[in-house]
């Protein structure tokens, strides 16, 4: 889960990382109660980068200008997002700007400290200067000093900046984050530092053990607008496209493989839905039939779909258990729009499953390639 800049800065402040005095602005008139002296900077609080280029950050000298700027920013979408809040912040004159981050490195399977003296710009453009330190053992401050020295800092700045990295790491660890980034960390002529902008991404799997982050999460608007209205059941993952074949599978890689096969066979997917794999403590395999039924309901809402292809590989339950769920769904939706179902099942008790579906005139096969071929063919037929 992404945090907004002001939420990240609240966490920085709790951890003792220096941030500027700031205030949240929910509507332009809030600026009349501003407690920070002018000049200030107004910043659109959206989840995407590139705010500056897009015009989402403005420097203003007085209330009149500030209100006008705030109105403009509230009405400025950045990559499709409108801000719900602006951050009004004191201005700061940095002598130099650094980049600092802590991320989890998939390859080394360890946290990674990142830093560069070329902060304040789009980070992709300065990757050449980026220094990195892998935290291979339990963290200790010398890892932070190691980064800061690699960045080329010397003298008192070593301690000042490595102390910020230390705090970023503690935050990363205590809150189970995927990313803590300060860009830029401003350095003043007197060697003082200030986090001018910050980004935090919390790990979704760990969210439930951090009530403070969970609370921020609930304020967050749904980022994906979908044609298919209604919230997706927990543990499911839907991607919408613009073809005519709905795809419903259990397991992420199986879903992708099925999608690949549909395209390969000349089909046009309308969407693909993963109803969840086999190792969830919260949704164990014996909930698969119910998840399939819920998934069918979700896909059934898409009026553009002619065929729904189910590819279910049954492990912990039998094919017939899943089929009962399909049948239950089919019977309930016997009126109104009803896409054709093409069912592919692999697993135990296939014959029993076949029996049930044949009674409902739903196509069911055991072979994957054949299921794909039939689904694509059905999607192209005029009858469906």
């Amino acid at each position, binding site marked *: 889960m992404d945090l907004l800049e002001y939420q990240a800065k609240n966490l920085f402040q709790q951890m003792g990382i220096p941030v500027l005095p700031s205030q949240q602005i929910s509507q332009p008139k809030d600026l009349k109660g501003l407690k920070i002296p002018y000049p200030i900077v107004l910043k659109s609080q959206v989840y995407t980068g590139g705010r500056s280029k897009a015009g989402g950050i403005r420097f203003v000298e007085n209330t009149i200008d500030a209100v006008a700027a705030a109105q403009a920013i509230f009405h400025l979408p950045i990559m499709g997002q409108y801000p719900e809040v602006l951050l009004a912040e004191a201005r700061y004159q940095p002598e130099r700007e650094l980049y600092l981050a802590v991320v989890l490195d998939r390859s080394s399977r360890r*946290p990674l400290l990142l830093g560069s003296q070329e902060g304040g710009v789009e980070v992709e453009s300065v*990757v050449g200067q980026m220094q990195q330190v892998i935290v*291979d053992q339990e963290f200790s401050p010398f890892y932070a000093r190691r980064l800061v020295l690699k960045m080329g800092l010397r003298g008192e700045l070593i301690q000042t900046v490595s102390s910020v990295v230390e705090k970023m790491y503690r935050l990363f660890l205590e809150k189970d984050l995927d990313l803590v980034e300060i860009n830029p960390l401003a350095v003043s002529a007197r060697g003082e530092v200030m986090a001018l902008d910050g980004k935090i991404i919390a790990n979704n799997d760990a969210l439930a053990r951090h009530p403070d982050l969970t609370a921020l999460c609930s304020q967050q608007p749904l980022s994906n607008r979908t044609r298919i209205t209604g919230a997706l059941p927990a543990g499911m993952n839907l991607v919408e496209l613009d073809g005519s074949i709905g795809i419903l599978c259990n397991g992420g890689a199986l879903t992708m493989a099925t999608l690949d096969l549909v395209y390969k066979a000349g089909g046009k997917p309308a969407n693909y839905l993963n109803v969840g794999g086999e*190792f969830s*403590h919260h949704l*164990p395999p014996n909930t698969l039939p119910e998840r399939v039924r819920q998934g069918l309901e979700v896909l059934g809402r898409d009026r553009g779909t002619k065929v729904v292809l189910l590819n279910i*590989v049954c*492990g912990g339950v039998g094919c017939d258990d899943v089929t009962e769920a399909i049948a239950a769904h089919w019977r309930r939706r016997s009126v109104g729009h009803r896409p054709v179902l093409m069912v592919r099942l692999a697993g135990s008790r296939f014959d029993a499953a076949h029996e049930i579906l044949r009674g409902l005139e739903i196509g069911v096969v055991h072979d994957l390639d054949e299921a794909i071929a039939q689904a694509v063919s059905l999607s192209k037929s005029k009858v469906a």
Partner: protein
Amino acid sequence: MLFSAASRVLIQGITDPLGKVYAPLMQQYGTQIVAGVASGQGDTNFHGIPVFDLVEQAIATVGQVDTTVICGHPYMVLDAALEAIAAGIRHLVLLTDGVPPLDMVRLLRKAEATETLVVGPNSPGIIVPGEILLGTHPPDFYAPGPVGLISRSGTLTYEVALQLTQAGFGQSIAVGIGGDRIVGSSFQQWLQILEEDEATQVIVLVGEIGGDSEENAARYIAEAIDKPVVAYIAGRTAPLEPVMGHAGAIIAALVADLSTEIGTFESKLAAFKAAQVPVADRPSQIPDLVKKALQKVS
């Protein structure tokens, strides 16, 4: 092989939702489940398996344990794994998904220090057909044979196994290393194990887009693996998951001196090509490539 019908197996979280479903299935397959652990439920039994409050209690009563299968709550997996390591168990199979990645970092530091093999999390575990099931693989899909199957996924692994079995190619072992960002054992580790395993004549690697596991595996195959390898990569037509696009991941990939293209289907395909590993363009093509590979070997 590290795992056989003689292996003595423990199930931690045996009465948790995953344990309840899979422990009986493993037992039916013939896996020697000598005990289960479920805190607060000591002195009971589950499907005839004695249940203990603590791993060390279980070992004290039933004797040595070779492998533990952990299927408890995601937030309890780290503790369960550390408990198993402290009790001297050196093979851990983690089924549960949703384990916080920083818990895995801590576990893997400990595993490395104690030379413990950790498979998973978010993994179907291991099956040695005809011998032992340590996880969620549906036994009907598998048969004994010469193919070593390694994968990051769950149900797609079963699918590939089924295609192989139906085509007459049984498996020496099938391992799902787990689908999470941070997992224990890597493709490289398993490639090395299978390279040394006498029962394995050909290796099938089932990959998917995202991460750099396949790229690393391909490099390792070129350097260190003599047995033939066949690959399949799911996700050619799917967009990378949004999580891949975030600043940290981009930076980490860039800094690690990798292309921004890392994780894409094309990057993985190119890596396997460079390693002269044939890549199947659909699951049903895997048996054909396996057949060719076996013909070359003999």
